[in-house]
């Protein structure tokens, strides 16, 4: 049911198009409306999106560079960065693997239950992160029937790193498959059939024929997945136990600093997160721009 419904769900980062054709011509006639709308958009984006970014950076450096450096090189800060990166990398890997296989099976084959599977894939998008955390607490917590087994095997999931990783995977679960599926659907399966007909195996087909179609979608999926994974707060907060230096991811650590009157620290660590995310976004644009250029 939600296969279709979510089609437009994840935002597409599109390179601004230059062809304006008819529209441009018409707009020449009403410059006033044009500039009014542009100004409105610019102000809105500046206040809603740019200002918070600026605020983070300014506050981070409010007390100068030294306290900033101290804050970001603090033992616990480094630990939280490490944990966040770990969780992000694992989530991206798992979701990439999942995304590739899921989109392959959904777009290249007819089978029963396809609709259900696509709906389930999309589900995490609409589930509140709190609920995402909650379900793992319920599944692996003390009151779960699994708990005795986990306990006897000395496996901790919730209030430990695996729980954090799981929650991160969950909240970013559909990100990559959702980027790839529409691209593959649009491309159809003719090329793959042609390749199969010539005797190519699955890996060859994927690598030589399919992959080039989806690489930008995949890249974008990974970028979104990374950004979201790094920033996840709610689900991780439920599962973390807030063990300083152990299960505090960057967002949780920021909260901790924030509540410890260490605003400089909080915003300093935030700024790292912001900068990392911006780097990823920019990197992606550059990669895609270069790649697209090469293709032409």
């Amino acid at each position: 049911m939600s296969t279709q419904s979510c089609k437009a769900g994840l935002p597409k980062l599109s390179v601004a198009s230059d062809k304006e054709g008819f529209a441009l011509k018409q707009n020449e006639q009403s410059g006033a409306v044009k500039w009014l709308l542009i100004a409105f958009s610019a102000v809105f984006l500046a206040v809603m999106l740019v200002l918070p970014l600026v605020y983070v950076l300014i506050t981070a450096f409010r007390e100068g560079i030294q306290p900033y450096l101290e804050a970001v090189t603090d033992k616990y800060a480094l630990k939280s960065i490490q944990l966040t990166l770990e969780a992000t990398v694992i989530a991206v890997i798992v979701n990439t693997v999942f995304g590739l296989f899921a989109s392959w099976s959904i777009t290249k084959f007819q089978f029963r239950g396809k609709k259900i599977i696509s709906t389930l894939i999309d589900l995490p998008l609409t589930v509140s992160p709190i609920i995402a955390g909650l379900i793992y607490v319920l599944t692996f917590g003390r009151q779960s029937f699994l708990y005795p087994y986990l306990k006897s095997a000395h496996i901790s999931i919730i209030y430990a790193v695996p729980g954090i990783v799981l929650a991160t995977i969950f909240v970013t679960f559909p990100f990559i498959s959702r980027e790839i599926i529409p691209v593959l659907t649009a491309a159809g399966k003719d090329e793959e059939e042609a390749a199969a007909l010539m005797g190519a195996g699955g890996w060859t087909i994927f690598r030589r024929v399919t992959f080039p179609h989806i690489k930008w979608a995949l890249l974008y999926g990974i970028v979104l997945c990374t950004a979201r994974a790094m920033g996840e707060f709610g689900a991780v907060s439920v599962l973390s136990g807030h063990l300083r230096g152990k299960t505090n991811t960057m967002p949780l650590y920021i909260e901790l600093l924030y509540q410890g009157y260490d605003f400089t620290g909080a915003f300093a660590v935030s700024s790292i997160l912001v900068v990392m995310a911006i780097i990823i976004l920019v990197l992606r644009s550059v990669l895609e721009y270069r790649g697209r250029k090469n293709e032409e």
Partner: protein
Amino acid sequence: MEKNYYVELKGVNKSFGSFQASKDISFGIEKGKLIGLLGPSGSGKTTILRMLAGLETADSGDIIIDGKVVNDVPASKRGIGFVFQNYALFRYLTVYENIAFGLKVQKWPKDKIRARVEEMLRLIGLEDTAKRYPNQLSGGQRQRIAFARALAPQPQLLLLDEPFAAVDAKVRQELRSWLREMISAVGVTSIFVTHDQDEAIEVADEIIITNQGHIEQIGTPKDIYRQPDTPFVAQFIGQSSIVEDFRRFAGFAHAGSNATRAAVRPEYISVSKQGEPLRFPVNTETGVVERTAFRGSEIELTIRVKDTLLTAKRLLDDTPVSVGETVRVFIYRLYAFDNEKAYVIENEALTSPDSVVI
């Protein structure tokens, strides 16, 4: 006595859900022939081709290639070349890589691949496009690349699904002759799908006409053109006017069979101005010209004869006929049909001895 077929389908059926796309399809193709699968849209042409290729599995019946039943041979092992309707060229591989793909998969040595690809490029006359990507080619060029890609691994059977559908009218014309020549040069047994009768007639050695999932008629273009077997073929082929009761026309009153409807083709109608000498003065009808249309080398006339509109043609250099003029119409031949069969019926004037020829 059975012929020595290279490809044979025996009682093949295929349904998609409750929709039967192929009904009891049986035919055989001799080695080296070029076969056209002709039929209206949705008549099951692509389905037959895809079953042959192994892209679709027949529900029942046998598919035999080179004497072996291939029902259970996967598509990749059938050694068939396939040219897809929209070519399905690999968009992210160069022309060279496209053609080389099948060879690489078969682990040909590098130098042999190079030689073969270059040979194919020469064959299709596109040597200098090797490094381009498909989207940098015109429709006609893409078509040729698709053809080369399918042929490169030297398949014994080549299947083409509407190979000309995606190119524009002028290019299509050229490509047809090109393909025809190419295939006879290579000598590969081929089947191509089309819904354009001109195309089938022009290109194929033999035509299989499909309609609503079954085969209507198999034969050479001339056979099919001249001797339609079924009502569907009689109406589908040529540019016919349909006549409700053909016995009203002079020269057809005593036709055997109880069919009443008939298809009349313009080329079997001769139109003469009043006063022009007639080849068959008996059995002519008079008609009134309702419309004339310039058709380049010919003039197309729409003539009302006994309350029926017939389409006929006159040469551009003949004396012009004008709208409203009464003319003499002689129908040589028509295709009568009932619900099951079609019959060729000649004007009695041509067959009975008492018609006078001047």
